[in-house]
C-alpha cells in the first residue's frame, strides 16, 4: 500500500514499473489493473490551458490512506498504489494514478475502479482551470463514473 502526493510531474508507467519491481513479488500476483487520469485541453466546451490542484494538507493524505485501506479490506489485494498531483498542472500531464495487484483479475479491476470513485467523491482536492481566454474558474462537479 502506498499513497503519494506529487508537486511535480510524474511518469505513471515508470512509477508502476518501479513499484512493481520493488514492492510486489513476481509470480505471486497474476493481475494488475491501473488507471491514469490526465489533464485534457478542454472541459465543458472551453479550451483549458492549465490547472491548479488545491488540496487539504494532512486531510488529503489521511483520506487517501483510508480509501486504500478500505479497498484492501474489500478485495484480496497483494498491493495498491495511489499517486496524485497537486499544484500547477499543464495540459497532457498525469493527474492521478491508481493501481491494484491481486492473484486474479476480478479483484484488481473492481478495487482499482473503487479507488478512483472513492477518491473522486471523498478526497479533498479542488481543480481551478485557467481557460484559453485567460479566465479562471473552479471545476464544480465531476463526470459520472458509473
Amino acid at each position, binding site marked *: 500500500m502506498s499513497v503519494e502526493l506529487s508537486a511535480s510531474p510524474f511518469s505513471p508507467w515508470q512509477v508502476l514499473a518501479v513499484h512493481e519491481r520493488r514492492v510486489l513479488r513476481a509470480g505471486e500476483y497474476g493481475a494488475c489493473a491501473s488507471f491514469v487520469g490526465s489533464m485534457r485541453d478542454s472541459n465543458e466546451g472551453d479550451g483549458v490551458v492549465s490547472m491548479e490542484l488545491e488540496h487539504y494538507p494532512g486531510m488529503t493524505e489521511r483520506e487517501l490512506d483510508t480509501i486504500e485501506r478500505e479497498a484492501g479490506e474489500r478485495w484480496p489485494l497483494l498491493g495498491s498504489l495511489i499517486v496524485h498531483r497537486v499544484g500547477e498542472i499543464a495540459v497532457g500531464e498525469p493527474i492521478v494514478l491508481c493501481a491494484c495487484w491481486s492473484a486474479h483479475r476480478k479483484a484488481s479491476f473492481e478495487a482499482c475502479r473503487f479507488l478512483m470513485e472513492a*477518491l*473522486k467523491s471523498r478526497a479533498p482536492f479542488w481543480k*481551478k482551470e485557467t481557460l484559453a481566454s485567460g479566465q479562471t474558474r473552479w471545476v464544480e462537479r465531476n463526470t459520472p463514473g458509473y
Partner: protein
Amino acid sequence: MPIKVRFFASLREQIGRAELEMPADGVATVGDVWANASAGAAPPADVLAAVNHTTAGLEHPVADGDEVGFFPPVTGG
C-alpha cells in the same frame, strides 16, 4: 487553545481568507464554528466540513484545539 478554522478552494475565495482562530467558549458544534466565522451567514447548501482531518457534519461537536475545515464539493482525480 483556540479552535483553528480553515477554508479551501472557492469557499476560501468567497470568504476572503484561508484561516482564522476563535476561542472555544460557547462554540459547541461545527455549525457554531461556521456561524461564528461568517458573522451569522448561512453555510452554502453543499458545504463540506472536517474536524481534525476527518469529514464531519454541522452537528459534530468541537473542542479546544480542534482544527475545523470548510470546503466545497471535491473535484480531484
